[in-house]
């Protein structure tokens, strides 16, 4: 087998290495991305003795090339001869883990973590762990940052003396001089805590956690909040109060909004980690404060968590806590000055109705929903509408329908096409919940108006919407309400509207069935094949291809085929192209 040992005559390493050295970055990049092919050509032996040393020593390259290299090496174990030789990959990855560029370094660390699993316990201590130590005591911050991500993968599989060393290194990095390293350490604190023995979690990790959580830089402190979740999960309930809570309380009141934001953002996880008792005593007031925070960012993050927080409250006191502590804050947020806060709240507030039940929903939540449906910011209204299903289950949508309609109409005509797009997407859902009569009476005109919107994306979504409505209300409804209007647009002076007819037919033919398609839609499509705009004509070809399977063979042969054949001789090359495509797909040739 030529590949197994490499074939000198065919693939001299010099040529391959020349490729890796090519002056053109793009070519170097291509070569690096195919590094495994090169290694395969060289065979495992020469890959170890020639290729890897070359990569380690001579590669000084653009970050893009280095990134590709770092990624490749993570999958190289088999190419150097399996787990037995996997440590050969460490030297090049070690240098990659020290480069400046973060993405390269991160990728190198990722690959190192991956291949660490392929090391035998002995190799891990002989080769891998010394590398981690070298990185951890490197001069420049980059290597120390990289080291932070490697402790947790080797810790569980080494002897207790080496474990002690690793813990010591991690401690040192947590109080590193440069904030970059402290940030890296703080972000890995939770992960490292998980692999430590419980005693060391209590003795080592807690003091590191406390120190990082009161770091002078808020960028470090906020990372400690993340670690807090993992640490709290590891500790027995009785230790939480003394070991974790003082720090968490401090974080929730931190003078930097970034830290408070982080607390709000992680609130559900924290809540689960500390358990119901502490939640009742500590987290409820803390959550109230976050909902009333002076920075909108923090309030929005907390508002996002309202539903999850309430859901996870202990069942015995859930309703009482919500009614007396949370709901008053929520009421204030409904009229917040910041639209992001309001829209964050609107995206979850409907979820409270299932928790509180019918009576409370009608008495307390409904006024809030109605207020938000009238909010000046379209996103708020949209978020309410998009979550209607939760309320529907509890109190039925009728309670809301009077306020719903004006809100929907206004969103349907919003100046921002993305808002219009969003409301279209909820139409099928609304139609299902409001019923066909309400729909015909109030919403049908909107759905038809979107078909002639100025923005293509809206027209496209409107087409798709019609299809879903037909699936819901059936073909007969389609025939009476939609199809005539759609087909009427085929005579519109604007070619974009004429094309919309075709797009609608594409979407509707299947849902409407053979009868409607053959009798009503097909004649219109065929007639449009004489349109003066080429775009319309080639879309006719595409439509015929699309609706062909719905038609019977008689119609195909007698009506569709002649038209396609005529289009296939069109003066326009695209019309020809699509006509020919349709002919071959429908097998009419």
């Amino acid at each position, binding site marked *: 087998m030529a590949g197994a040992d490499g074939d000198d005559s065919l693939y001299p390493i010099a040529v391959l290495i020349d*490729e890796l050295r090519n002056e053109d970055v793009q070519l170097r990049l291509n070569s690096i991305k195919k590094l495994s*092919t090169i290694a*395969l050509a060289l065979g495992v032996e020469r890959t170890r003795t020639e290729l890897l040393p070359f990569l380690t020593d001579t590669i000084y390259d653009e970050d893009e090339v280095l990134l590709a290299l770092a990624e490749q090496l993570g999958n190289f174990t088999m190419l150097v001869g399996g787990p037995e030789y996997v440590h050969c990959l460490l030297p090049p990855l070690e240098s990659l883990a020290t480069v400046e560029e973060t993405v390269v370094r991160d990728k190198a660390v990722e690959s190192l973590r991956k291949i660490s699993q392929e090391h035998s316990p002995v190799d891990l201590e002989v080769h891998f762990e010394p590398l981690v130590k070298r990185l951890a005591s490197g001069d420049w911050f980059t290597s120390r940052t990289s080291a932070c991500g490697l402790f947790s993968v080797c810790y569980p599989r080494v002897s207790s003396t080496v474990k002690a060393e690793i813990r010591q290194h991690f401690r040192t990095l947590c109080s590193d001089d*440069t904030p*970059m390293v402290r940030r890296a350490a703080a972000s890995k604190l939770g992960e490292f805590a998980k692999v430590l023995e419980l005693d060391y979690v209590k003795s080592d990790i807690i003091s590191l956690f406390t120190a990082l959580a009161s770091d002078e830089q808020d960028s470090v402190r906020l990372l400690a909040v993340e670690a807090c979740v993992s640490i709290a999960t590891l500790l027995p309930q009785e230790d939480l109060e003394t070991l974790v809570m003082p720090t968490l309380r401090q974080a929730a009141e931190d003078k930097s909004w970034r830290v408070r934001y982080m607390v709000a953002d992680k609130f559900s996880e924290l809540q689960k980690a500390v358990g119901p008792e502490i939640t009742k005593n500590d987290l409820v007031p803390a959550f109230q404060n976050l909902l009333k925070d002076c920075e909108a*960012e923090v309030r929005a993050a907390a508002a996002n968590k309202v539903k999850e927080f309430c859901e996870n409250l202990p069942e015995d006191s859930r309703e009482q806590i919500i009614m007396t502590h949370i709901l008053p804050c929520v009421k204030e947020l409904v009229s917040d000055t910041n639209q992001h806060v309001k829209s964050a709240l609107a995206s979850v507030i409907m979820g409270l109705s299932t928790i509180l039940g019918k009576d409370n929903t009608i008495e307390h939540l409904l006024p809030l929903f109605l207020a938000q449906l009238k909010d000046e910011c379209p996103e708020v209204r949209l978020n309410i509408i998009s979550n209607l299903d939760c309320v529907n289950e509890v109190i039925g949508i009728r309670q809301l329908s009077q306020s719903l309609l004006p809100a929907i109409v206004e969103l349907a005509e*919003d100046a921002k096409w993305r808002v219009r797009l969003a409301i279209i997407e909820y139409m099928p859902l609304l139609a299902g919940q409001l019923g066909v009569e309400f729909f015909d009476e109030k919403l049908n005109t909107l759905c038809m108006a979107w078909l002639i919107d100025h923005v293509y994306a809206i027209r496209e979504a409107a087409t798709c919407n019609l299809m879903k409505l037909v699936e819901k209300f059936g073909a007969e409804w389609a025939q009476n309400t939609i199809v005539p209007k759609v087909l009427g647009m085929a005579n519109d002076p604007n070619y*974009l509207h004429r094309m919309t007819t075709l797009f609608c037919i594409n979407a509707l033919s299947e849902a409407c069935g053979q009868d409607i398609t053959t009798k009503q839609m097909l004649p219109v499509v065929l007639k449009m094949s004489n349109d003066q*705009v080429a775009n319309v004509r080639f879309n006719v070809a595409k439509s015929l291809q699309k609706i062909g399977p719905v038609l019977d063979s008689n119609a195909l042969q007698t009506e569709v085929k002649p038209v396609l054949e005529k289009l296939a001789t069109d003066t326009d090359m*695209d019309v020809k192209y699509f006509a020919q495509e349709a002919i071959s797909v429908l097998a009419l040739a």
Partner: protein
Amino acid sequence: MSAISASEKVDGFTRKSMRKAQRQRKSQGSSQYRTQSAPVELSPLPQLKDAPSTEQQELFTQKLQQCCMLFDFLDSVTDLKSKEIKRATLNELVDYVSTNRGVLVESAYPEITDMICTNIFRTLPPSDNPDFDPEEDEPTLEASWPHIQLVYEFLLRFLENPDFQPSIAKRYIDQKFVLQLLELFDSEDPRERDFLKTILHRIYGKFLGLRAFIRKQINNIFLRFIYETEHFNGVAELLEILGSIINGFALPLKAEHKQFLMKVLIPLHTAKALSLFHAQAYCVVQFLEKDPTLTEPVIRGLLKFWPKTCSQKEVMFLGEIEEILDVIEPTQFKKIQEPLFKQISRCVANPHFQVAERALYFWNNEYILSLIEENIDKILPIMFGSLYRISKEHWNPTIVALVYNVLKTLMEMNCTLFDELTSSYKADRQREKKKEQERDELWQKLEELRLSNSTLVQNNSHGLPSVQNNNNNNNNNSNNNNTDAQDKSADAAADAALTVTTNNNDPAESATCAK
């Protein structure tokens, strides 16, 4: 919601100007967090100048304490009277420390720094506009500026007072103070950053013990900016300070300073904001004037970070290279001429005319011209290919004219070499083509080998590349179809002239309509 006019309804994107106007109206942020309790109403104290000299010190302290009261400036109607009293008091304090001698007694230092810290040190508020672009957008201005400005003014006068004693002040203006001061450089308010710049410069000048610390912290800010957040509003100001610090470095340069140059200042060139480049170039040139042996690593560093997609940045890089070449020593020039001119030759051939033009302007620089002439036998072969090709096929007539001039200049420098290159041009191109073909063949063989092996060795990515190749081919085909079809939209658009006018504003439309 007010009724929306038809023109607005077309699309939200067209209303950027309107959204901006809205933002400007409320572009005032403040960052004072939770003033412990509602502010107590201030009552005016007697004027310092009217007080007997024995009581002045006591009154000064009282006024400083009074100024520790913080007010909410987002609410423009509350505490108007107290706000005015604090403003007047601050004005008086500024006046007091700048005109009087002997007012900075030792006991006043803690009171003074306390007042300053309370007022200026705060967590900056979240930006209204997460993608704040200093060149495009209006900055959010600090709402409490009427007070903060005076406090900065006061701090500056305090530092500049002839009686100011760093030996006493260093107990209060310490590392922590500096750290908090540096964090404020992230303020979006340019007025604030300007004050901070002057103040930090004064502190650097007066507190020798803090200098190394300040430099290190600035490094940290830059590194974070480069590798972590890509966001810090005060980079340009900090660079300005560093520019003048570098100027004062003693020779030979310490390893720390060289490390700053290579590991911080050069990577800083990856920054998005173009406004930084002037200050960067200044710092780099400062270094090179101090120590010319740094030229080679610096230019190699710049070549490493050479912009690939941003033409505007490329123009800035070329500007910086020219500034460096202006001060380069001929011996240093020889060391980097090859990689440098390979890049310049790529720039000359850039389809963006501004890049090409900027590179060609090098030939208007007498000093650079003399360096090129000295090394014409090395440079001409590098440049010839691009210049020759561009002279035939660049779309922009100005560039073509410039290239002709450059070719003429180069020809005059070494006529024989020029003729040789002209005659071998075709052969060279053919050799290149052949080499490319050989490369393709090599890879194809490797690919085949890989496929035959894929059953033997279990490796995750086997077989994928060949499949991808097929896909590429398919894509190419369909792309061709697309381009053909695009011609169509023009006819169609003309046909539907009625509607075309409204479609202009519509990105989603034009994207699909083209098809």
